[in-house]
C-alpha cells in the first residue's frame, strides 16, 4: 500500500514503545507493513525502565543476600553486606541491555523509529514534537495507528512525587541507599513486591492499606501466606488506614499520617514514603479527540476483541486500554493489533491471562478460582498439593504455599489455578497451556512430570482433584 506522496507517511503508526507498542511495531513490520514507532522517553516503556524488569532485578539481589544470610540451618554461614548503589548499577545494566535490545530488534525488523511526543491532528494524521522546546515537530500520515501510551503511577493529595522523600515505584527502584524506615502506601502487588525487597535489604517497612488485607484480588489463603512471610521479614501492616499527609519529624525524618474511615488518626515515623496505590492511563497531550476517540470515566480507551477503538483503523493496546494492566497482556494485544491490521484473523480470544506477583513466596494465577467457576455456572472440583509435601520444595528450603487447581467436575476441563510458593510465576505456565488446550485433570495427571521438580505439584494437585493423589491425602 502506498501512503501517498508526502514526505512522512506510514502504514502503521505506533505511539509508545512499551511492551504493547514495541511488540505491535515488530509484528506489524514482520507482516510486511511499513511501520513507524514513536517514543517520547525510553524504549521498553514502564516495564523495562521502571517496572517489571528493575523490580525483578532488585528482588533477585535482595533475595539472594537475605537467603544467604539466613541459611545457618543449611550449614551456610555468611553475613552479606549489600552495596545498594552497586546493586542499582547492576540493575541499570540489565535495563540498558534490554532496552538496547528492543531498539535493535525494532531496527532489525525494519521498524522506523522516531523519538518524540505524538499527538493526533485528525483521523489519519499525527504530529510528533521532538525533544524539548524549539526542537521542531513533524507531521505523519498513517493508514492505521496503535495507541500504546501506557500508564503512570497515581499521585494522591498531600504526596507530591517531586518531594525528595516521596517515592513512586520509579524512585524506589533507583535508590542509592536503603532508607532506615520505609513507609509504603498501598498493599497491592507493587507495594508488596517492594515491601519484601526493602525488608530483605534491612529497612523497617510499614505498609498502610485502606482495605483490610493486602493483594485485594487474591484469595484469603493466598494472601495469608504472603502476609505472614512479610511479617516474618519484619514488615508491619496497618489495614483500614488511608494516608492523609506527611509532616517533618523532630528526628530529621518524617511522619506519615493516616486516617481510618471513622476518622481515627495515626502517625508512623519514616524516612521515605512510597506511594503505590495504582496506575492510571496516559492520554494527556495525545489529543485523542482530534481522531474521534474518547476515554471512559477512568481515562481508559475502550477497545473490542480485535483491539480496535471506536475508530476502526485506530487500535489501543496495553495499560492505556484497561485491565489487566500487565506487560504480557499488553504484548498479546500488540500482536493482535498488528495482525488484525495486516488482515489476519487474530483476536483476543485466549481463555486466560496468567498473572504473577514476585513476593516471597511468589504468586502465580491463571483462569478461574473456585468461587469464580461457581459464579460462571460450573460445578467446580478442586485439588491441592501443599509444597511442604513436595520433595523438590524441601530440597530448596522453600516449602510454604500450595498449588490449587480448579476444574469442571463433569468434563474434567481445567479452568484455573492458584499457586503460591517457590517459582509460582514459572509453574503457572503449564496450567495456562492446559487451559488453552482444553486439557482435563486426567491429561495433566497422566503427563509424566520430572522428579524432583516443583512442577510435580501441578500434577499432584490434578490427581488430588481426582481423589488419586499419591503424596497427599485425598479429600
Amino acid at each position, binding site marked *: 500500500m502506498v501512503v501517498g506522496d508526502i514526505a512522512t507517511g506510514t502504514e502503521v503508526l505506533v505511539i509508545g514503545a512499551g511492551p504493547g507498542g514495541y511488540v505491535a511495531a515488530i509484528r506489524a513490520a514482520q507482516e510486511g507493513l511499513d511501520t513507524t514507532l514513536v517514543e517520547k522517553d525510553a524504549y521498553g516503556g514502564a516495564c523495562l525502565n521502571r517496572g517489571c524488569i528493575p523490580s525483578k532485578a532488585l528482588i533477585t539481589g535482595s533475595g539472594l543476600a537475605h537467603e544467604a544470610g539466613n541459611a545457618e540451618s543449611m550449614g551456610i554461614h555468611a553475613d552479606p553486606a549489600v552495596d545498594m548503589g552497586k546493586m542499582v548499577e547492576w540493575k541499570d545494566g540489565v535495563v540498558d541491555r534490554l532496552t538496547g535490545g528492543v531498539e535493535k530488534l525494532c531496527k532489525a525488523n525494519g521498524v522506523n523509529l522516531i523519538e518524540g511526543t505524538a499527538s493526533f491532528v485528525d483521523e489519519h494524521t499525527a504530529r510528533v514534537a521532538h525533544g524539548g522546546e524549539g526542537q521542531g515537530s513533524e507531521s505523519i500520515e498513517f493508514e492505521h495507528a496503535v495507541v500504546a501510551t501506557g500508564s503512570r503511577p497515581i499521585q494522591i493529595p498531600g504526596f507530591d512525587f517531586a518531594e525528595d522523600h516521596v517515592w513512586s515505584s520509579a524512585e524506589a527502584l533507583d535508590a542509592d541507599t536503603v532508607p532506615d524506615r520505609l513507609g509504603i502506601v498501598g498493599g497491592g502487588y507493587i507495594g508488596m513486591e517492594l515491601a519484601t525487597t526493602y525488608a530483605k535489604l534491612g529497612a523497617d517497612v510499614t505498609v498502610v492499606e485502606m482495605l483490610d488485607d493486602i493483594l485485594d484480588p487474591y484469595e484469603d489463603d493466598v494472601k495469608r501466606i504472603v502476609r505472614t512471610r512479610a511479617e516474618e521479614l519484619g514488615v508491619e501492616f496497618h489495614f483500614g488506614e488511608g494516608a492523609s499527609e506527611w509532616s517533618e519529624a523532630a528526628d530529621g525524618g518524617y511522619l506519615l499520617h493516616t486516617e481510618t474511615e471513622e476518622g481515627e488518626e495515626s502517625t508512623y515515623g519514616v524516612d521515605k514514603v512510597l506511594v503505590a496505590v495504582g496506575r492510571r492511563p496516559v492520554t494527556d497531550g495525545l489529543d485523542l479527540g482530534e481522531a474521534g476517540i474518547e476515554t471512559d470515566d477512568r481515562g481508559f480507551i475502550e477497545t473490542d476483541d480485535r483491539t480496535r477503538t471506536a475508530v476502526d483503523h485506530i487500535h489501543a493496546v496495553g495499560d492505556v486500554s484497561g485491565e489487566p494492566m500487565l506487560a504480557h497482556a499488553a504484548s498479546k494485544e500488540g500482536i493482535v493489533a498488528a495482525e488484525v491490521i495486516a488482515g489476519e484473523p487474530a483476536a483476543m480470544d485466549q481463555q486466560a491471562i496468567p498473572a504473577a506477583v514476585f513476593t516471597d513466596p511468589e504468586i502465580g494465577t491463571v483462569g478461574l478460582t473456585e468461587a469464580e467457576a461457581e459464579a460462571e455456572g460450573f460445578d467446580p472440583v478442586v485439588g491441592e498439593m501443599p509444597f511442604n509435601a513436595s520433595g523438590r520444595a524441601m530440597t530448596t528450603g522453600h516449602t510454604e504455599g500450595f498449588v490449587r487447581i480448579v476444574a469442571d467436575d463433569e468434563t*474434567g476441563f481445567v479452568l484455573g489455578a492458584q499457586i503460591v510458593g517457590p517459582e509460582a510465576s514459572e509453574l503457572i505456565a503449564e496450567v495456562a497451556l492446559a487451559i488453552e*488446550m482444553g*486439557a*482435563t485433570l*486426567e*491429561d495433566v495427571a*497422566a*503427563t509424566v512430570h520430572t522428579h524432583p521438580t516443583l512442577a510435580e505439584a501441578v500434577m499432584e494437585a490434578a490427581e488430588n482433584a481426582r481423589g488419586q493423589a499419591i503424596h497427599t491425602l485425598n479429600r
Partner: protein
Amino acid sequence: EPEPETPSGRTFAPPSARRLARELGVDIAAVDGSGPGDRISEADVRAHAEGGDGGSDTADSGSDEAPAPTPTDVGSGGRKSAVKKRGD
C-alpha cells in the same frame, strides 16, 4: 484422497483420549481426528466406537506402513475383573 500417515505411527491425541480408546476397545490409530493436523479428541474416539467414522480410511492405510505401538489388547480389563475390590 489419502492423507499422509504420521511418521513412526505416532497418534496425536491427549492422554484422556488414549485411555478412552483402550476403555472402549478402539484402536486409536484407526480413529479420524477432527482437530488441527487431525489431532484426535475424546469425542472422535467415541464417534469411532459408535461407528460414526467409517473406519476403513486414512488411519488404516497409515498403520500398514508404520505399525503403531497401539495396544489392541484390552483384555487386561476383563481378565483382572475377577479381583475383588475391598469395598465390595
